[in-house]
């Protein structure tokens, strides 16, 4: 049936041409012919992703986006680019607790790792933006980040010899626009897929994990239920699935009172105060320090937090955390040192060496 409909459409298009008065003129040749970018979706990842219909990935768009991602003209004093805080060798983080912008002012949150964003629908620690196109404007314009007026960036890029032809190839016009800058950055970021860790190989049926890492994985994914003797690290409730993130927001008991309300600032709902995105833990061994404000230096400190130092009086503390202990009537999580070590061993199996070395994601200006 569908084939017949398509044929019908083919028949109707010429019909409309036939009716138009100036059919003598040849149809205009498209001014540009970008090559569709063949994004390989890993077979064990969710297959139902959507790309905005007005920003399909093209080879030229992605290449432009890569240039822009590492372009210092996107900062107010031409000293920093997106890549300054999102460094490939650190899985696109910067190793700092809080990101620091061009004016030396620290942001109140840390730079997030950029992986597999294609599968997410809310961005930033507070979930305040809903597409990569929309998100890209924030870090360029925020005063504590790149502090650049996007309109000014358009003028600076237009004055180069490099960019007008790249925009021409990507979008069919050498006249640079704010919208096309954001679209190209989004296209590049959609290609940042990390799916080649040893955990991925395990998911695909290979024997890629050591017995200790397999035990760590089982603990990681298990919510403890001491009544039936089931021990668990309680990580997977928020960081489960192939993305290692449930894409949800939680208060994970860091503070009794909040200086940063997270999701609550976005929604205005007091029940959301203190909730932050459960980020993907892919490449987590490369993205220290941890939490939205980078307060923990090591994975050991993170595990100690969840095991021993949760603030049980924190407003909106997640039920998944409150109700989790490895002992009947236990208050805290009560993992053993050995169990914590196994979970950390598993976390190291989430590192994707090929991702952090992939030339396609590196700085093209070098």
């Amino acid at each position, binding site marked *: 049936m569908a084939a017949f409909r398509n044929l019908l459409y083919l028949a*109707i298009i010429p019909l409309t*041409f036939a009716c138009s008065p100036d*059919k003598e003129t040849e149809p205009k040749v498209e001014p540009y012919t970008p090559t569709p970018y063949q994004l390989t979706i890993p077979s064990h990842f*969710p297959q139902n992703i959507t790309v905005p219909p007005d920003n399909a990935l093209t080879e030229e768009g992605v290449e432009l986006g890569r240039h822009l991602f590492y372009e210092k003209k996107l900062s107010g004093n031409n000293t920093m680019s997106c890549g300054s805080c999102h460094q490939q060798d650190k899985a696109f983080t910067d190793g700092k607790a809080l990101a620091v912008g061009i004016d030396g002012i620290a942001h109140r949150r840390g730079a997030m790792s950029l992986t597999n964003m294609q599968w997410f629908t809310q961005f930033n620690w507070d979930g305040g933006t809903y597409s990569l196109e929309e998100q890209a404007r924030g870090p360029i314009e925020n005063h504590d980040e790149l502090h650049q007026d996007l309109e000014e960036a358009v003028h600076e890029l237009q004055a180069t010899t490099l960019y007008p032809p790249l925009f021409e190839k990507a979008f069919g016009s050498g006249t640079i626009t704010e919208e096309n800058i954001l679209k190209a950055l989004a296209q590049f970021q959609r290609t940042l897929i990390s799916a080649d860790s040893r955990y991925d190989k395990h998911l695909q049926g290979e024997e890629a994990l050591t017995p200790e890492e397999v035990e760590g994985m089982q603990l990681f*994914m*298990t919510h403890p239920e001491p009544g039936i003797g089931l021990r668990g690290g309680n990580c997977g409730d928020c960081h489960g699935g192939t993305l290692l993130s449930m894409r*949800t927001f939680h208060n994970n008991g860091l503070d009794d009172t909040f200086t940063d309300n997270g999701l609550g600032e976005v929604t205005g709902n007091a029940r959301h105060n203190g909730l932050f995105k459960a980020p993907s833990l892919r490449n987590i061994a490369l993205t220290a320090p941890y939490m939205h404000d980078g307060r923990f230096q090591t994975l050991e400190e993170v595990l100690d937090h969840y095991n021993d130092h949760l603030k049980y009086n924190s407003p909106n503390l997640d*039920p998944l955390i409150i109700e989790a202990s490895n002992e009947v009537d236990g208050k805290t999580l009560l993992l053993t040192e050995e169990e914590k070590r196994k979970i950390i061993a598993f976390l190291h199996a989430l590192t994707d060496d090929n991702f952090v070395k992939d030339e396609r994601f590196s700085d093209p200006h070098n």
Partner: protein
Amino acid sequence: MKNTLIWLLFLVLALPLLLTACSDEDDTPATGNLQVNIQNMVGTAPLQLDEGTYTSPAGDTYSVSNFKYYISNVKLISSNGQATFAEPESYHLIAQGGKTAFELKDIPVGTYDKIELAIGVDEAHNHSTDQPGDLDPSNEMVWDWDTGYKFLSLVGAYTGDTESGALVFHVGGDANYKILTLNLPKAINLREQATFELSLQADVNELFQGPHTIDFDEMNSGGHGAGPSMVAENYSNGFLKVVEVK
């Protein structure tokens, strides 16, 4: 001028295709559709996440912040054995605040007086990374491929007689995949009417009674292992009800 002739020729050639397309539609065996709507309730009150406060069968007060479950392998059955329709790739993640309806399409005409469906994910799909329907491996419902999917997730808070705290019921494991058969109060005769609507209600309180009354003071979480779950035995009994067929 020459161009116009070519276009006209195109059109003439395309016309028979158009006609075939139309007659094809007439020739296909008649089918109908069934829209299935599910309303999550607590007793007689509609479930409201976060806002509502409810009383459990054991008399505890509770609220719900997250409620999701899988309905899968939906079939329509004719009790005289004449027809059975099984929805292909039939996996529906019903979520309060998310999907609460689905449509069975291209059902061969016939008269159906029962609906069969399962709570959970069948063993073949529970340990696989194939993803028909709503089996997205990053939708909050997967643990890992040893344990498989959470079939039902209920998260909330309670105040009991002696204690208060969080409620976390995650039910999964092949033993807890339950097939239910519900009688329809009115048969779905797709010869008489091409589109029907079936309204179901899911009662959260039924998760906590019949056969097992669950007192939150004694049990405020459960289901995390693969073993048989009391909540699953409860959801196979009275959790889903047919309200109306029209």
